[in-house]
């Protein structure tokens, strides 16, 4: 009996002392956390992908709360959850969700092996940052894509890959969440986040070469030489030349593709249009030619009719419905 009693008393005392110690320790070292952080954390996807640029969703949640306290959620975006999640977060924090139009990463270089002759052979660690530090790389272009795939390594969504034929990365629009990891990874600022545009249709200048015309021309077949034709052609004032290279403002661009028609270097690119600009230009040219031919034929027919006034008027009647059909 005594033994049992001693054991109970000793254990009870140990438990009590431990409880008291724990109580004071937890009071003393309590970490005060904003309750909103937990709430925000709950609506975040919990994938801890880091696509937002923070270490996991917890980091993002505290960053959101901090940003809300300073007044704006701008610049914070959960690439996985998209605007749906961000508006939820905003409502928790009592903010207006920053209405962000969907963006997509765009590679602004087309310096494939065919377009951009290799003048040297790089022999070292195959990462863009090292090649960039080494010099212009294998080509004469000091601004273009180095093709070692730092962007591919940075992408957590498997959305960007080097095309083995061109050696240039290509973005998979379906998978790209516009987290901007590739933009940061690229030492030459070739990748840009651009608005996806209406019906996903968009137009951009696919060159960042800042050399003067002759040097740029020598380095690459599809380099922007800052001739300014596109600037003149644009009706929406969306194109400007900055540092020897043309740039289309995606906020102003209406995707009319007028600039593409005049670019002598064919370095303006489009995406998701039903017809390529060449087809459109060809069709236009054909239509023009057809219209001219028609006008000519009509004129000839008229002349003929006039000349053969005595003949039956069927000829003109026959041609008229035909023209309508066309």
């Amino acid at each position, binding site marked *: 009996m005594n033994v049992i009693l001693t054991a109970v008393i000793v254990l009870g005392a140990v438990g009590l002392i431990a409880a008291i110690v724990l109580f004071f320790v937890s009071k003393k070292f309590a970490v005060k956390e904003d309750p909103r952080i937990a709430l925000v954390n709950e609506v975040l996807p919990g994938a801890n992908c880091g696509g937002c640029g923070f270490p996991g969703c917890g980091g993002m949640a505290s960053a959101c709360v901090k940003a809300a306290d300073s007044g704006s959620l701008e610049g914070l975006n959960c690439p996985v959850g998209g605007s749906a999640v961000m508006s939820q977060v905003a409502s928790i924090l009592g903010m207006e969700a920053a209405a962000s139009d969907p963006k997509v990463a765009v590679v602004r270089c087309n310096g494939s092996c065919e377009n951009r002759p290799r003048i040297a052979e790089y022999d070292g660690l195959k990462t863009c940052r090292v090649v960039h*530090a080494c*010099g212009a*790389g294998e080509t004469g272009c000091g601004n273009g894509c180095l093709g070692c795939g730092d962007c591919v390594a940075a992408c957590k969504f498997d959305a960007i890959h080097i095309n083995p034929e061109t050696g240039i990365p290509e973005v998979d629009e379906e998978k790209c969440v516009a987290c901007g990891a590739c933009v940061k990874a690229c030492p030459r600022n070739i990748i840009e986040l651009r608005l996806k545009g209406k019906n996903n249709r968009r137009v951009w200048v696919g060159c960042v070469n800042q050399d003067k015309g002759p040097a740029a021309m020598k380095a690459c077949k599809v380099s922007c030489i800052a001739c300014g034709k596109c600037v003149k052609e644009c009706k929406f004032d969306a194109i400007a030349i900055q540092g020897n290279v043309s740039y289309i403002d995606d906020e102003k661009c209406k995707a009319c593709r007028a600039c593409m028609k005049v670019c002598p270097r064919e370095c303006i690119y489009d995406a998701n249009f039903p017809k390529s600009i060449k087809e459109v230009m060809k069709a236009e040219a054909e239509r023009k030619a057809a219209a001219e031919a028609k006008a000519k034929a009509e004129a000839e027919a008229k002349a003929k009719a006039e000349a053969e006034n005595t003949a039956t008027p069927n000829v003109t009647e026959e041609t008229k419905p035909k023209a309508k059909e066309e």
Partner: protein
Amino acid sequence: MRTFRIGGVHPEENKLSHEVATVPAELPKQAVFPLSQHIGAPAKPVVERGQEVKVGTLLAEAGGFVSAPIYSSVSGKVAKIDTVVDATGYRKPAIYINVVGDEWEESIDRSDKLETLADHPELTPEEIINRVKVAGVTGMGGAGFPTFIKLTPPPTATATCVIINAVECEPYITSDYRLMMEKADEIIVGIDLLMKAVKVNKGYIGIECNKPKAIELFKQKLASRPEIEVVPLQKRYPQGGEKQLVDAVIRRQVPAPPAIPVNVGAVVQNVGTAFAVYEAVMKNKPLFERYVTVTGKKIAHPGNFLVRMGTPMIQLIDACGGMPEGDNKLLAGGPMMGKALTSVEVPVCKGTNSVTVLSGDDAKRKEAQPCIRCAKCVSACPMGLEPYLLAKLSDKGEWDRLEKEMITSCIECGSCQFTCPAHRPLLDNIRIGKTTVMGIIRSRSAKK
């Protein structure tokens, strides 16, 4: 015999042009002067297209405090101000001059007469520094730091001696050696000027023992001058590194950056710089020509040339028998720290001490294997760093730890990569880490 105390490697010497006397190189048809030949702000052009210039005419003035003016090395007409691919591999602004004749500015003293400091007692330290600054003299060893800044130490430090870097520890290069053999008297006057400029009365010349003739020559010439000491050094790379040389010669180590050698009392100048200082101060001749070694195992006639700056490298290579067949690596500098060039048209600049052509197997790196943790890079590092660790952390992007591991002390000498039995591109990785960490430190101090 002295040497530095930490690390070091022994690359194969390959001093092919050691005993080939220097000859003046032919004038180029067109000379190109990049505006950024030194560390610091690019120079600002002061000439216009079509303007006639002479040898020694100012082409561009210093573009800031840390900068240096650039003078024409040829006479002729300014063809254009455009861009040229320089040693960095990128297009940089440059002045093109079409060469006509060889007419010199009259202010330059072209005689061979040796002017000593005793002949010109009127030269004050300030006057010497000013002439060096105006003449656009920069470090001739490769880095190209404006010399006048080195001669005006910060108020916190006091110089106690001048150390002349005549080590030439890089394989292949012999231009400094030839300069020492051919212009010894001028160099000694140059050292006198440097010592007067920084107000010290002790000078050292560090020469590696693979140049016994130069050691002998200078010992003989300085026999009656105890204040200038010839210090023979063991052959070991990177002894020509400023910090290593200070350690080897005066047994002091420069603390971690931002400390510079003058913090331990040493002003280190290249032997080529000493000569350039002599010419600038005594002959009123701005820096526009220099000694250049053209070398390579497959080069038919490796040689040393007195080259006017702006001469395209291909012209020098052609003068030595032309570019070898097959794939080559063209270096501005030696194989340890030289820059590989993407164009043979790159002009000779103030810091170009050598044009080295590596051919065949020498031109290519060997395939990298996994690290076997042999610790040979740790023993080789002259800064006492752990290259294997720095490379690994750089690869993983752990910038905070890299800073603690003192990556900013790295002098990029390449000893680690040279010695690595697994042929790993250690320095490639470390450079990325170093530039990133430097950027982080800069932005942090900017915030403060």
